[in-house]
């Protein structure tokens, strides 16, 4: 083939059997409107090129004509699986600019909702991973417990998916009295379910056959591609923003950072499952220490940022989510807001991980990267 389509780089001696497949933007396993062009040799992938932009909404441009508070609602629509965590990322950047403190109770609410969101996102991963391997039942199992988290979020924030909950200095509302007992019940329930689910998937011989040694991402590559979150930790780098650069009150809790060393699909799966358990551990500590009394937000202030540049980074379920706010004039509108989402670098590493694997493995690898396309395109 003298002329390769744009993006393909590898040159081969013999390429008579090659053909190209267009995977997406409407494909069951691309997790949204992502398009991959695959260069195949039979069932084996030689090279792939991802194409973005099918769900681009120009969020960062929109943000320039929005107030800061309006942008919090937009952050929900980036990674909709970790909406509540994205809210916090934006809010922390704003707090740095406004220079407001957060009362203790508000911090506890934040941490608890963060961890509930993390569990919800990882449960979706669990479901999609099983589903993408062909076990449709898994999908429903993962979503079953996620529904319970959404019920709790609905009670607290008023909406199930796009929460738009945190505000500089606290949150929109106080949590209801039923919040703590509900979380406690949910944790007890999840403990049982996770035991079943892990037996269902982790110890399944077919799952192990299909994921061990597949899509290996070495430690060096993971760092070079800018991976973060469970993908980075599965490659053996013990990096978690909650520990490396603590925000909110994460430094007060006792939790481990699960890592693995091979960086294959099974490791990424295991790291996420272990993170569910760590999140449950944090939630239990929160329940024990949750302050009954006290203000749930600091004194209300108009959201006006002085001239400057403000940066925040948090650990969402997917990885490092950073917000960079540039305020050129003192006021309620930004000059520019840039978001660094975790999924984009992961898709960048996809080509590296897929080369030489089968098309079925691509589906496995995609599932373990757990990308959310609206967050890549924004």
């Amino acid at each position, binding site marked *: 083939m003298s002329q390769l389509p744009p993006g393909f780089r590898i040159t081969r001696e013999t390429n008579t059997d090659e053909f190209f497949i267009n995977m997406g933007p409407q494909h069951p396993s691309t997790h949204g409107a992502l398009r991959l062009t695959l260069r195949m040799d039979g069932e084996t992938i030689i090279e792939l090129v991802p194409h973005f932009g099918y769900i681009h909404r120009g969020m960062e441009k929109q943000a320039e004509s929005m107030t800061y508070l309006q942008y919090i609602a937009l952050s929900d629509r980036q990674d909709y699986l970790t909406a509540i965590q994205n809210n916090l990322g934006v809010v922390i950047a704003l707090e740095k600019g406004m220079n407001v403190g957060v009362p203790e109770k508000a911090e506890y609410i934040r941490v608890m909702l963060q961890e509930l969101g993390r569990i919800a996102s990882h449960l979706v991963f669990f479901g999609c991973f099983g589903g993408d391997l062909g076990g*449709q039942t898994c999908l429903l*199992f993962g979503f079953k417990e996620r529904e319970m988290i959404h019920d709790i979020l609905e009670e607290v924030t008023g909406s199930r998916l796009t929460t738009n909950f945190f505000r500089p200095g606290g949150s929109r509302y106080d949590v209801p009295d039923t919040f703590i007992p509900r979380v406690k019940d949910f944790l007890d329930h999840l403990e049982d379910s996770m035991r079943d689910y892990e037996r269902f998937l982790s110890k399944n011989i077919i*799952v192990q056959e299909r994921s061990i040694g597949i899509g290996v991402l070495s430690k060096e590559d993971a760092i070079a591609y800018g991976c973060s979150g469970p993908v980075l930790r599965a490659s053996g780098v013990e990096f978690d923003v909650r520990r490396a650069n603590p925000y909110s009150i994460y430094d007060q809790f006792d939790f481990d950072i699960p890592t693995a060393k091979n960086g294959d699909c099974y490791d990424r799966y295991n790291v996420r499952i272990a993170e569910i358990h760590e999140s449950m551990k944090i939630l239990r500590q929160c329940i024990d220490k949750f302050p009954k009394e006290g203000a749930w937000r600091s004194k209300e202030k108009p959201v006006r940022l002085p001239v400057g540049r403000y940066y925040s980074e948090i650990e969402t379920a997917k990885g490092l989510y950073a917000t960079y706010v540039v305020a050129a004039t003192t006021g309620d509108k930004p000059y520019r807001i840039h978001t660094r989402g975790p999924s984009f670098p992961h898709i960048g590493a996809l080509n590296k991980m897929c080369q030489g694997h089968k098309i079925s493995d691509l589906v496995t690898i995609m599932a373990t990267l757990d990308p959310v396309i609206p967050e890549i395109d924004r």
Partner: protein
Amino acid sequence: MFVPSITNPIGDFVRDIVPRLAEYLPASIQSDTLNSIVAFLVNALICVIAVCAVNIGSAPILIYMERKVCAHVQCRLGPMRLGWHGTIQTIADVLKMLFKEVYAPSGADKLMFYLAPLIVLIAPFIVCALIPFGRNLVVADVSMGIPLIIAVNGFGVLGILLGGWSSNNKYSLLGALRSGAQMISYEISFAMILLFVVMISGSTNLMSITMGQEGTILDWWIFKIPVLGFIAFILFFISSTAEMNRAPFDIAEAEQELTGGYHTEYNGTPFAMFYLAEYIALVTNSALAVTCFLGGFLPPCIGIAAVDNYLNMVPGVIWFFAKVYFMIWCYMMVRWTFVRPRVDQLMDFEWKFLLPVNLVLLVAGAAYIVVFN
């Protein structure tokens, strides 16, 4: 040449009544040859209607059953709105599918494209004609039943290959090629296990295979040969799952990878035919498993006369379908429990595990017969 020999009471009744009815005709056109031809045609028609009724009638039941089993495995309710517990849902779905416009993608080989769904239907229909549903309920009681089944089962893969190839779609082609490789490989194990059954029962006729299991439940081939029978049954279960292209061996469809595999481009009636063929294959494979291992239409007698009398009162056809639906339920539970192996792992499993085990099983079965007979 294969001549259907209709030996059931209905066949005798038709042969009996046709000459009597012929007496009302003018004497000039009466003849024994005509009578026998008419009797043969009427019998053939009855057989075709019976096979169609069993096959096409069971498809909506199975689709409903699959949706319900799947739903309850997944903590859902499944169809609930149309009719009592969604019983009419399948009929509505079928009607919708039949009224859809049928079209082929541009660049498709039209003849092959429309021929493929018909070809996949051939095999399950022929197999169904060979299965004894009751003591007198068999359409074609041929002496070479098992070889015929092995022979016609390969038709299915032809339809899938044609369908995938003629669709002018790379996903379809990949699915078809996968399925071709898979079905041809698993056909070998499938045939080997049927060979094992032929060896232990000493007959290739399905009726004699069934009647060889007469007695108590322990005389069924699954239990009669200790351990070996059970292993053979499990191996049959695995290879027939692969033979039917059902999950976890549904790599030919592999929704998550190939968006539907060989039937990606099909819609309306041709798609319904692929769907139908899949479910009829489920019935025929279960029926084959029941006939070869679970005593066919024989009741599960336990050797206590008082109980057995009651069990024997139930017609054989009811026992047969009870067992068939139990097998189908097993297939469905497996489908909704396991994840799908990769294409190369599937082939490894067949050639490096299933086939050697089958060969060992055959040798062990032969040794058993030599030692204990």
